[in-house]
């Protein structure tokens, strides 16, 4: 493993239920994703995309295997820390189908929530938030409420939120599902750009094959196994 590794997974398995209701979703999955990569994750519905995303994101506990986030081993047949939420807060950014901004916080406060939880210096956090808003061309909207912004603008704020704590990984769960073609392409281009510029590994779940050409690699879940295209 080198310094460029963002995610490393070895022999990861996940199943649900037992007896007649036993379902194995992922079996012995092993892969590495490097910083600066935009990886598309595809699979049929119910194929385990979200489950895999949640396991990498330290939300869902795998049955067995190992997971590294950067150089830190976080799972070895069990979580190696009780504070998986701290790992998420410090090392992982999330982007969802919808923007899922906190509706009662204005744009800048939506961005400042995580730095506050991480006890980051307020001035530094604010400067970083403003820099991100400027980067996404929504600097003039910092006092606006999410309800006052368009869908595309809100999705850009959501991406900015995912970047606020300089994460090693961004996990994006169908970030273009609610957008039209042009906006979808814009968002994926932005993700590609930030993957390179911020040296972040981005795993993007998508159903839209038109987005695949913009990705560096395509990871497909087929018969419980991971195949790279």
């Amino acid at each position, binding site marked *: 493993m080198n310094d460029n590794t963002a995610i490393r997974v070895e022999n990861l398995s996940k199943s649900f239920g037992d007896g007649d209701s036993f379902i194995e979703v992922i079996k012995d999955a092993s892969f590495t994703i490097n910083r600066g990569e935009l990886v598309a994750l595809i699979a049929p519905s119910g194929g385990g995309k979200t489950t895999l995303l*949640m396991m990498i994101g330290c939300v869902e506990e795998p049955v067995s295997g190992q997971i590294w986030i950067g150089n830190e081993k976080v799972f070895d047949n069990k979580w190696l820390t009780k504070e998986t939420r701290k790992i998420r807060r410090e090392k992982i950014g999330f982007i969802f189908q919808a923007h899922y901004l906190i509706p*009662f916080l204005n744009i800048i406060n939506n961005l400042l929530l995580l730095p506050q939880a991480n006890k980051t210096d307020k001035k530094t956090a604010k400067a970083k938030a403003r820099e991100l808003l400027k980067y996404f061309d929504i600097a003039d909207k910092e006092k606006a409420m999410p309800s006052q912004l368009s869908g595309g603008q809100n999705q850009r704020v959501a991406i900015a939120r995912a970047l606020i704590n300089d994460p090693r990984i961004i996990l994006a769960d169908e970030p273009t599902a609610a957008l039209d073609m042009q906006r979808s392409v814009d968002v994926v281009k932005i993700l590609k750009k930030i993957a390179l510029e911020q040296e972040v590994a981005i795993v993007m779940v998508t159903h839209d094959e038109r987005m695949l050409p913009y990705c560096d690699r395509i990871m497909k879940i087929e018969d419980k196994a991971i195949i790279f295209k």
Partner: protein
Amino acid sequence: MIHLAKEDVKHILGKFIVTAMGVGMLLGIVLIMMGVYRGMIVDAEVLLKDLNADLWIVQQGTLGPFAEASRVHEDLQYTIQSLQGIDKTCAITFQNIQLPKKNGKVRVFAVGYDVYGDINPVNPARLVQGRTLTTDHYEIVVTDKTGFSLHDKIKLGRNTYTVVGITHGSVSSGGDLLVYISLKDAQELQFSYSNKRIQTDRARGIINKDTHMVNAIIAKVKSGYSVAKIAGNIRKWYHKNVYTRKQQRTVLTRYVVEKASKQIGMFTAILIIVATIIISLIIYTMTLEKMKEISIMKLIGLPNIMIVRMIVEETLLLGILAFIFGNIFSHIIYSKFPKRVVLEIPDAWMLFGVVIAASILASFVGVKKVINADPASAIGG
């Protein structure tokens, strides 16, 4: 520093205030209930304080006229007066009567006293118009809430009475409006029957109806004498029950007001429980409405303490706002109640403590929901 509770409340300010007002009205009723109880205690003592008697001599084996029927002979006052250490005495009657008015009747509590005696039950501080009684017959002093004016004529029994004085704030231990009449008039109203009744009684062999009865003799003790010792002597030699001022107060609060106060206490406790349940339900609903956001907050890594703090602070804010609205509401409506309502600051502080405790208790339902929220539910739509 982002204050999640403050920002959320700002976002739903109108709804939050209306909710707090609703709960506040409930708390206002709790305050009114407490005020009704305090009012009963104050009312119970008005007459006791106005009479300012050291001793109450009543029928043997009874608790006295405030608690049950008591009859003693009127001339007992002269016997009591002759005892060493007694300064003043007065024979006194109490009875509920209905004063006829144009649009119905007013229930009042009539105090009958010896106009020429040593003790005048009409507290001069309460007399706002006219004068006290000066003759033995057909004069009446009424309290202002009866609606009568000075010089009004009131037909009672066979006779017509003239209003000669108006008092303010005079009520009986039961909260009925007080009027004052002479002892002779009171005895006539209480013990004299119609001609037809007298004829019937005679036919039944009932004769010599003694109308020279009173309900109690009150006495004041000269300074330097022991009230308890004199009371003991009367009990021993004259076979009467005697109550000191303190004992009479106990009779009123323990035997007369106690059940009513328990009743009010029960209502108050139930209302507080209902308010707690309502606050819990509101917080639960408010938390449910935010479950998606809470799951997202948990998923992106916010610690539970930040989210729990938001729920607890919102609940406390709701409780405090409801308490303020409750106070405003109770102060607006308390004077509209027919009986005395006394709103006391210590009661309000006590309710404040209960509201804070109830709010913390109520927030548990929301907190439990937060702790159990699955961050994974934020993913996948």
